[in-house]
């Protein structure tokens, strides 16, 4: 079995030419970010998606969602990553946010113990609101500050994660340490076969809370005449 690896979309797409096209239709996975404000949720995603980091990044503005492909064995997973857009600050996230999410990254700041408590309450919220099979990763960000100002012992977070059945890692959006691995581990844990079977080839996803609409007959507003074509075309990447 080959080692799974997350790579920028370009590399994944380049590799695609060699293998059977049918298996390489990207499997879309909705991933939601959660965590206290300013723990670096968006920075982690920007590192993962664009491999970049901005010091003193403004609070999230202007991204409906970001996407990144991730190659796993003979499959390509296309993460559709939803940022909270600040709606978490006053606990005003809409049910739409959690709906159909197959994965969640709950972020805390390893220099701020209170942010881990907040992360735990987000995990509870996910267990209450989201798809029961959601894969949750608890990620301690700002690993680059571990030597100087660590406030949360790594063991504390991992013990909690083990107990709650979560993936767990520490990472640094600033240096890029461990960021790819977090997403790769998530990709490995998502029941892809089940997902594909449930969708029957449809782009959408199964519902949260056990419901979930039938895969047939879904209307794509943008695919109609004059609309944006959302089919996976031969993209520039």
């Amino acid at each position, binding site marked *: 079995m080959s080692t799974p690896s997350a790579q920028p*979309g370009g590399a994944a797409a380049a590799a695609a030419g060699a293998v059977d096209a049918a298996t390489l239709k990207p499997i879309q996975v909705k991933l939601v970010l959660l965590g206290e404000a300013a723990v670096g949720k968006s920075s982690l995603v920007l590192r993962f*998606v664009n491999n970049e980091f901005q010091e003193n990044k403004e*609070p*999230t*503005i*202007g*991204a*409906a*969602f*970001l*996407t*990144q*492909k991730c190659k796993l064995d003979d499959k390509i997973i296309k993460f*559709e990553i939803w*940022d*909270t*857009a*600040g*709606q978490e*600050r*006053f*606990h*005003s996230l*809409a*049910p*739409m*946010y959690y*709906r159909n999410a197959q994965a969640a990254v709950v972020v805390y700041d390893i220099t701020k113990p209170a942010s881990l408590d907040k992360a735990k309450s987000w995990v509870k919220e996910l267990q209450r609101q989201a798809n029961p099979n959601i894969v949750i990763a608890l990620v301690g960000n700002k690993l680059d500050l571990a030597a100087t100002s660590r406030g949360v012992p790594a063991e504390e977070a991992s013990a909690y994660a083990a107990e709650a059945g979560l993936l767990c890692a520490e990472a640094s959006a600033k240096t890029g340490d461990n960021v790819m691995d977090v997403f790769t581990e998530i990709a490995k844990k998502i029941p892809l076969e089940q997902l594909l079977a449930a969708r029957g080839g449809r782009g*959408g996803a199964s*519902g949260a*809370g*056990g*419901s*979930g*609409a*039938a895969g047939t*007959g*879904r*209307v794509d*507003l*943008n695919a*109609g005449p*004059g*609309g*944006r074509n959302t089919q996976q075309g031969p*993209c*520039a*990447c």
Partner: protein
Amino acid sequence: MTADKTHFDVIVLGTGLTESIVAGSLARAGKSVLHIDRNEFYGEHLASFDLINLLKVTNHGKEEDPFLSCYDEVELIFQSGGEEAKEAQMKEEVLKTNSVEATARDGGSDVEAKSDRKTELADFLRDYPDMDAVFKATCGIDVEDTVLSHLTKSTADGESEPWMPKSWALLELLRTSRQYNLELCPKLLYSRGGLVELLAKSGVGRYLEFKALDQIYLFWEGKVEQAPGSKEDVFGNQTVSLVDKRRLMKFLTFAMDYEENEGLFDAFKGKPYQSFLQDQKLSPRLIAFILNATALVVERETLVTLSTEEGLALTQRHLRSLGRWGKTAFLVALYGAGSELSQAFCRLCAVYGGTYILKYPLSHISISSESGPPVSVAADDGTVYTASWVVTSSTYAKYFDPEHKLEAESQTVWRGIAILDQPLYGQSTLNVTVFPPESIGNVQGVMATQQSWDVSSCPKTKYVVHFQASGPCCSREDIRKALVALTNDAPADAAKPTVLLAVLYRQTVRSCGTTWLNDSAVVCTPETATPDLEQAPTVARSIFDRIAPGEEFLPSVPDQSEDM
């Protein structure tokens, strides 16, 4: 809990669709927006709930709450003859029969099973204290006296409590609560309507999922018939005479582009549409088809007063939406149209920097400051936010208008939500049945919209039908009659679906149109009685243009997912 920032360009109160489009469009145009709702859910009167929360909102018992008090006169129908209750009763009987033998043999195991059920019921009621009223109304049990006291009583005599089978059946239904998405006010989207175009153009549609409505039915002379949705349907219809077919086709072709043939209806301008249709020599049945199932006018007064121009515009809107997706002119949104659309525009607003605070009660709003920012809003927690503009739903009107000087009417809609064990018409899962006034002894016309698992309204084995009747003198009776006409009233009639649970309620919304109170404050009213949401984008646009003149309204969002 305060935002570090307390001054905004615009404060928006209420997360109904109009307010949400305004919030999203203004944030998109670079305005700073604070969006507040007193409720913990999005959508106000268009919200969507799981089963338990729907029952909670409709059985609230809080007359002073400005939102909840819009919902009253609730009636719950939980038929003991329902599939679940029957099953539960059967199980109970088997249990009883076995119990005699069991007690004779080894004694006790059945008693344990029964007391387990009671424990489960008691546990559930402890977790959901709001459901007390629901159990009381449907099963006639007083939770405190009956369930909890019986728990402590010994049941070793093997006697089963009469309320137990029904309560257990209700509990089983409530346990599947999360599989339901039930709308307070269900809505359809015209496939080529302004709202769908806006969703496609702005990119907000990416957050949403839709399915096409399968069919529209008309209740005519004692039976339900399919309303033709296309030329093929008209010609294929065996029950319409050839002459009538020709007349209908001629009329529909004209109505599609009626403005171009002004001469044909000039004499009827300002006169009733009904008389214009009669003048076209259309039969009463075809007139009913055009008025009730195409223009979707069902209020008896409107049927009479609707002018020819208005009627033609409604007919044209319907005809132009045909043939885009599916067999009808309409789309149904998954998880509930009003609720999802509101959330999607709110997300757009948040993505462009808008601040969201839900479950946030206000104590005071001022819109006439002598100096400083024109608008200030004080929250119950003491924080004061200021802004240059305030856009508010009519459920906040009491703050601006304590003496009810604002011209306002009450807009009353009677509604019913029924959970059924079978679909109404075989294969069709998403459909509308229109009952014209007096077709089933009803005063006002009734629209019944069936939804299913296809749009995540309910579990796969169930169906949901939303009933609505509006207009003067609409009543619970109108809803009841339509419910009876469509479902299994007599137990022998197994061909019709059985009502497992139905909630009938009255929705009364303060209606003041769209009113600018001064240069900085505007109140808008949700569309509760119409079957669609076409008014919301138009109203939102007019508010946007006044607050952000010259700016583009909801330009397309750059799609980051395309070029990664």
